């Protein structure tokens, strides 16, 4: 059952080949069996899942169901889940029981999906390897000595190891796409504003987006349909009609214009990966697409701009964690200042502290213009580069990551070397564009992902482009032998 996609499981449920209770029990058993090795889940909500499964079975028999009714999904532990611990991978929130559901969670509940549990992640979504979590690192199911990527490492590992058919992730600088690439699955970061951020613990408010992670584009389309759409409670939510993402999955790609940015194929890219990307693009040419080189001249400044904007916004967003109203509070605070500084010093890990400090610095008096304002200007230039490119091409393709999944500890000594693994994904968040990663092969026995970037609100096209490739290739069907 766990080798079936969400689409196949939905069919199975509706055709009464099995019940949601059987399906959920099956996945809960798989989680019990494999989670110690992978450490993908922080909290397993078995009682809740079984109760939801029974409700789903009732809905399925009375015909009041839709595609996701009865389907088990796991939530990245950044989404508030009412009555259930929501840790954001941090000691700061280890004791935090969310008093409400994030909109994303609420929408899955209304659709009748079943929540298996909360997934491990880099602390407060800051990281590219799932090594910064308070709950310990997540292992890559393809090689447990390698990282799964981050920050949605638990989500990617759970889907890749088939202990969950689908999972939610969030992406601020690549945190859906990069772990999807490292774990050989499919993930999509929507256009900024498409998916509500209400109840999604904020890291960088102008960059964060929640999105689906599953094994196929078809499954991502099903999940996205439930997740997307205007939410009054999120003031950055875009008020526009939501497309039917599944309706155009099978559209022909004849005449599709693909752009390959020359900046994505420069130094620093593993030649094996470059080769696999070109092979994938060749498949697209067979499907009728045309390919041309494009240029995104300011791409090399996306890293510097991001590592000003994101820490700045994070320093503001994480100011709320003060030990007063919720979260970790230090023992025996001697005064208010001591309460604040020690609660935060104890509750946050090193990477989070680094980013808060950098953010505080770049926003402080005398430095705002040189850093934050400058970064916002670079951001405009990067968006303009994409706008230009999308006048010549429909989608942009390239590698998701410059390397395959690296070893644990390999990039921990120097923060910058970790930041450089986001080099292809970051610009997409700065511009607010939608982006996907899908598996296109293996290098050194580890998965390789290709990134597809589209114009604003072109998720249907991205999903169609990914789906057509997955109809003629089989990388997305491969599963790690150990699980």
């Amino acid at each position, binding site marked *: 059952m766990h080798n079936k996609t969400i689409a196949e499981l939905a069919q199975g449920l509706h055709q009464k080949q099995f019940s949601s209770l059987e399906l959920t029990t099956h996945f809960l058993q798989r989680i019990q069996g494999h989670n110690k090795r992978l450490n993908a889940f922080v909290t397993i909500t078995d009682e809740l899942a079984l109760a939801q499964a029974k409700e789903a079975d009732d809905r399925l028999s009375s015909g009041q169901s839709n595609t996701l009714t009865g389907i088990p999904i796991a939530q990245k532990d950044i989404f508030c889940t009412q009555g259930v611990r929501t840790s954001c991978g941090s000691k700061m929130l280890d004791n*935090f*029981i969310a*008093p409400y559901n994030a909109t994303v969670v609420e929408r899955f509940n209304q659709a009748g999906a079943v929540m298996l549990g909360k997934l491990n992640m880099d602390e407060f979504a800051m990281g590219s390897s799932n090594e910064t979590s308070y709950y310990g690192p997540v292992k890559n199911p393809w090689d447990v000595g390698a990282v799964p990527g981050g920050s949605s490492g638990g989500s990617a590992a759970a889907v890749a190891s088939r202990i969950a058919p689908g999972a939610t992730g969030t992406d601020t600088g690549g945190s859906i796409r990069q772990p999807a690439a490292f774990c050989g699955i499919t993930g999509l970061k929507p256009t*900024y*504003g498409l998916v509500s951020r209400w109840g999604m613990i904020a890291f960088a408010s*102008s960059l964060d987006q929640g999105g689906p992670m599953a094994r196929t584009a078809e499954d991502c389309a099903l999940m996205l349909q439930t997740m997307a759409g205007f939410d009054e409670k999120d*003031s*950055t939510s*875009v008020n526009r009609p939501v497309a039917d993402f599944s309706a155009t999955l099978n559209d022909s790609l004849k005449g599709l214009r693909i752009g390959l940015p020359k900046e994505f194929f420069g130094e620093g890219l593993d030649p094996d990966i470059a080769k696999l990307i070109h092979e994938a693009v060749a498949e697209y040419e067979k499907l009728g697409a045309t390919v041309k080189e494009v240029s995104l001249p*300011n791409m*090399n*400044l996306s*890293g*510097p*701009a991001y*590592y*000003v904007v994101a820490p700045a916004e994070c320093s503001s967003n994480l100011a709320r964690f003060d*030990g*007063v*109203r919720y*979260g970790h*509070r230090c023992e025996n*605070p001697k*005064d*208010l*200042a*001591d309460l*604040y*500084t*020690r609660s*935060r*010093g104890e509750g*946050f890990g090193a990477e989070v*502290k*680094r980013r*808060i*400090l*950098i*953010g*505080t*610095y770049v926003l*402080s008096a005398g430095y705002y213009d040189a*850093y934050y*304002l*400058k*970064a*916002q*200007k*670079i*951001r*405009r230039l990067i968006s303009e580069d994409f706008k230009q490119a999308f006048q010549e091409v429909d989608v942009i393709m390239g590698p998701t990551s410059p390397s395959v999944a690296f070893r644990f500890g390999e990039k921990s000594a*120097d*923060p*910058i070397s970790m*930041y450089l693994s986001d080099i292809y994904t970051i610009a997409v968040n*700065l*511009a*607010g*564009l939608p982006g996907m990663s899908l598996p296109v092969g293996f290098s050194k026995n580890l998965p390789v992902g290709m990134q597809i970037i589209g114009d*604003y609100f072109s998720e249907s096209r991205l999903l169609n482009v990914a789906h057509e490739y997955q109809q003629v290739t089989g990388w997305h069907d491969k599963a790690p032998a150990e699980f």
Partner: protein
Amino acid sequence: MSLSTAEVNKIAWLGRIAIDADKIEAYARDLSGILDFVEQMSVLDTRTVAPMAHPMDQAQRLRLDLVTEADQRELFQANSPSVEAGLFLVPKVIE
């Protein structure tokens, strides 16, 4: 851009984060490295470029000034380590 330990202490206070004295130098090193990395931005002349705060230059949506939330104080205060009479308790502030 090299940060001194004094500067790190100042930033740590602004951010209300306690950093152990024996870790300050390591933070100074890491933060200086990050500032060197982002310094690359300065090569570009951006005097005529407008800053971009929102990916689609969206303006803040407004709503009518009406009360729309229900009182759920008890529920929301359940996560606090110290509450009394609907108030959050902290060490004495006023001497």
